[in-house]
């Protein structure tokens, strides 16, 4: 069997397993967790476009995610139909993302991060304090789920399948994006922005479009979120959500296609498990951040492989130089984009 057919067979098996998941899992609780993983994976994938491929770290993505959720929830609350509400929500999110991008791109690196953090906090401030518009701390209820093509999404398996369909479209789009000439030029702006400018590429525009693309999928994830929870409140816009999304991207391995998905699964499962025993999720989140940074900054999956190999080598008594994470290659042989020191201009 050639490598290509092997890959195709693997893909087909994974697809069949995912589609039949409600059947072989059976339990509603676990199906709901799977739905959560899928919707958070879409947010993580969208953030990964910026963190992994554009080299721009955003701490304001919860704002874009919630912008779609809030807009749709408010419109539904005022009696609009699902289709109108969702389309308008995506339009509003794209407009917000455009402003977000124009402001954020006044800087790169640390400046971009701080500006996006501030914008995220503004959106939090609107959600929390502008009570007459957003209902403040009480949030907004979403009474119904949509029924696309006449299929009701009220049951857990039905919602899971709908989320899976959206997730697969997102994943396919991301794969296409990463392989496209545009994706290559985006990685070019990450690695060598000056050289890209010299080659005639409009670095600002490439980054701007990438942010719009990322904002679009954040908005889609936000819509799935309100339909899943049938509620949205200001805690969704809080910095914790942006930080969790960033943790998903980085724990799985940024700049890869499946890393953010694995990261989303890890974070969602961990959050559910931890919350079942103690109410100190923020504490655990903080400790995980510090552990990841200290021991496997390239992500859990590649990091575990590296540490395991180093351990084996040490057992065999040979010298190992790969304990230094910054010298380790990324999952696909490239160096990890976000570990490079910031170059002084």
């Amino acid at each position, binding site marked *: 069997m050639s490598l290509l057919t092997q890959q195709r067979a693997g893909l087909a098996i994974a697809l069949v397993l995912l589609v039949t998941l409600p059947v072989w899992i059976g339990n509603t609780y676990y199906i709901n967790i799977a739905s959560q993983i899928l919707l958070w994976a879409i947010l993580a994938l969208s953030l990964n476009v910026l*963190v992994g491929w554009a080299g721009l*770290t955003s*701490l304001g993505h919860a704002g874009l995610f919630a912008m779609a959720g809030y807009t749709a929830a408010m419109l539904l609350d005022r009696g609009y139909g699902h289709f109108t509400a969702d389309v308008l929500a995506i339009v509003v999110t794209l407009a917000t993302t455009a402003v977000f991008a*124009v*402001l954020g791109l*006044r*800087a790169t*690196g*640390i400046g971009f*991060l*701080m*500006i996006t*953090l*501030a*914008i995220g*906090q*503004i959106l939090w*401030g*609107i959600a*929390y*304090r*502008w*009570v*007459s*518009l957003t209902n403040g701390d009480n949030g907004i209820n979403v009474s119904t789920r949509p029924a696309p093509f006449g299929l009701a999404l009220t049951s857990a398996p039905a919602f899971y399948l709908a989320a899976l369909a959206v997730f697969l479209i997102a994943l396919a789009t991301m794969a296409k994006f990463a392989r496209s000439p545009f994706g290559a030029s985006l990685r070019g702006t990450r690695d060598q922005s000056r050289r890209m400018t010299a080659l005639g590429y409009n670095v600002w525009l490439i980054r701007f479009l990438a942010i719009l693309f990322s904002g679009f999928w954040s908005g889609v994830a936000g819509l799935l979120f309100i339909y899943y929870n049938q509620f949205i409140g200001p805690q969704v816009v*809080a*910095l*914790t959500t942006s*930080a969790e999304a*960033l*943790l998903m991207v*980085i724990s799985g391995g940024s700049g890869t296609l499946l890393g953010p998905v694995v990261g989303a699964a890890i974070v969602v499962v961990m959050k559910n498990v931890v919350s079942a025993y103690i109410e*100190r999720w*923020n*504490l655990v*989140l*903080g*400790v*995980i*951040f*510090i552990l*990841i*940074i*200290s021991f496997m*900054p390239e992500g859990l999956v590649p990091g575990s492989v590296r540490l395991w190999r180093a351990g084996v080598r040490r057992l065999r008594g040979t010298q190992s130089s790969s304990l230094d994470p*910054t010298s380790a290659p990324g999952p696909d042989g490239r160096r990890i984009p*976000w*570990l*490079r*020191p*910031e170059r002084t*201009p």
Partner: protein
Amino acid sequence: MSLWLTLAVNSVALGSLLFLLSSGFSLIFGLMRIPNLMHGSFFMLGAYFGVTLLSKGVNFWISALMSAAAMAAIGGLIERFLLRRLEGQVLPQVLLTLGFAFIIGDLCLMLWTGDPWQPATPDHLRGVVQMAGLYFPVYRLVIVIVALVVAVALWLLVDWTRLGAMIRAGVDDAPIARVVGIKVSQLFTGVFALGAALAAFGGVMGAPYLSVYPGLDFEMLPLALIVVILGGTGSLLGALVGSFLIGFLYNFGQAMLPDLAYVILFLPMLLILVLRPQGLFGRVVS
């Protein structure tokens, strides 16, 4: 006293508190380029230390100084043993400081519960002073005086002393500074500790006025950020002007458009980013 004057006095007092918070942030983020997302946590933890000491009957000023010293030690340790290993790597530094911010926030919630703590204004700082026929609360004036003293002291330290020259040299060109015998690492740890201490001191000074409650950390962090972006990174004068500007905006916004007060705070920052990204008093880095 008329409403406007009350608002103005409150604005200057809040601006002074913000300066204590953001001058430290200006040193750490603006000067040393460390994205310290736990700066708000320093403020909150310092305030909690302070109110605990106050509730044990310790003198106000001694509480504030002890809290600042404790925070300097904590900040110094984090910088020396964790942040230093990540020198120049922005994202890992962000994640580390964010991780600590979450941990500190949750620990504070665990230790001091979710109820707000508001210590009484110390006895000797109560009352009002009469000036030009108007009455001013003593405590607000004291905050302003403390902030101005700190501002002058920092300005003298950074711009006019040998130590300040060494810090600036370390920031501009660390390898060369090391070659001429400046201990850049120790200096930076010291500056980081100083920034943390200023935040904690500000937290204690603000406690009788703002009270201390969970979530204060992530409320103060964006404020410090706005002030530094407004004023220009690394500029102490910018931090001072920015603090007072935000102090005024917050109080007047609160009085006139209470729903939008928090959002209005960010408008000047957005304007500055569009029109003058280096900030009001920032240098253009070529």
